[in-house]
């Protein structure tokens, strides 16, 4: 295995048309083209996808888990923000 690490890339795969791209994992590659090829080989070899996005990991800005308190906890007791007070007809799926 090589000692110098290639940049890390995040891989998003659309499983089938109509669905959104989902994060599948990450891998190493020297450039975007190689990242696409590697993603094809690593994540779609069992027919998992119809489209691939690659993003170099450094371009993803993540929230800091230390801030979870102020970011997420205030939403915990605001049940009125959920649309659970409506009764949905049975015919409507995927809500």
């Amino acid at each position: 295995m090589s000692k110098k690490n290639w940049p890390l890339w995040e891989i998003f795969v659309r499983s089938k048309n109509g669905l959104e791209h989902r994060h599948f994992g990450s891998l190493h590659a020297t450039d975007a083209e190689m990242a696409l090829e590697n993603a094809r080989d690593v994540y779609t070899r069992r027919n998992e996808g119809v489209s691939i996005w690659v993003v170099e990991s450094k371009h993803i800005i993540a929230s800091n888990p230390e801030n979870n308190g102020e970011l997420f906890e205030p939403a915990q007791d605001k049940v009125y923000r959920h649309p659970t007070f409506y009764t949905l007809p049975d015919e409507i799926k995927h809500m």
Partner: protein
Amino acid sequence: MNSLKNNDPNVLSSGVPDNVQKEMLYNYILGIADNSLILGQRLGELCGHGPNLETDIALTNISLDLLGQTRSYFQYAALLAGDDKTEDDVAFLRIEREYRNILLVEQPGTHFGYVIARQFLFDIYHLLFMEKLQFSKDETLAAIAKKGIKEVSYHVRFSSDWVKRLGDGTEESKLKIQEAIDDLWGYTDEMFHLTEPDTAMISEGIGIDVSGLKELYYSKVSEILNEATLEVPQGTFFQKGGKEGVHSEYMGYILSELQYMQRTYPNMKW
């Protein structure tokens, strides 16, 4: 293969006695399939030993593509051979002189440059060949080619990209890929030699005249090498023999590993 009716006497339509033609076709198929078998086996050696996880998986994917194609060819060959022969018999139970692969595919992956150069020099040929074979009069071979073209197109893309990356990469990577291209160059000419089964099958409209692919092959290879800022070797001495069953010193070792299970446990099945 489903498209072949077992022992159909009309498989080949010519005045030549059927069994002679059948044997020619059998040998013609081996001439195609053994390249994929041996290169697939060579690539398989890298499983768990690739330069990194991603390349490791990519190379073994290619290996599996090639072995998948080999299976289709051998299933067809086994049908032609009759006597309840199976694809495994064809793959594992021949002696060295009966393997028809070109010398290029049995050359060792001395370093990653050799793995890529060997792959690249074969892939360019393989795609040109498959593009012709899909129009073969033999439906089974045409079907295998049609399915294989998509796989092989990806192989070409993968190995060409790597040639460019290494050639136009660092000083060391350039040196190594050039070394490998130079060393393997002498095995390229054999691809375009015609064998007896080739000639017989060309006249049936089944086989491909590989000698006609030569010019296009070298122009495509040169194009990529130029793009990779590599030298196109000018050597004029070429090795040959594999197509006639005369192999390099590496072949015996490849076969002893390939055949080990069938030789040790005859008739074993997975």
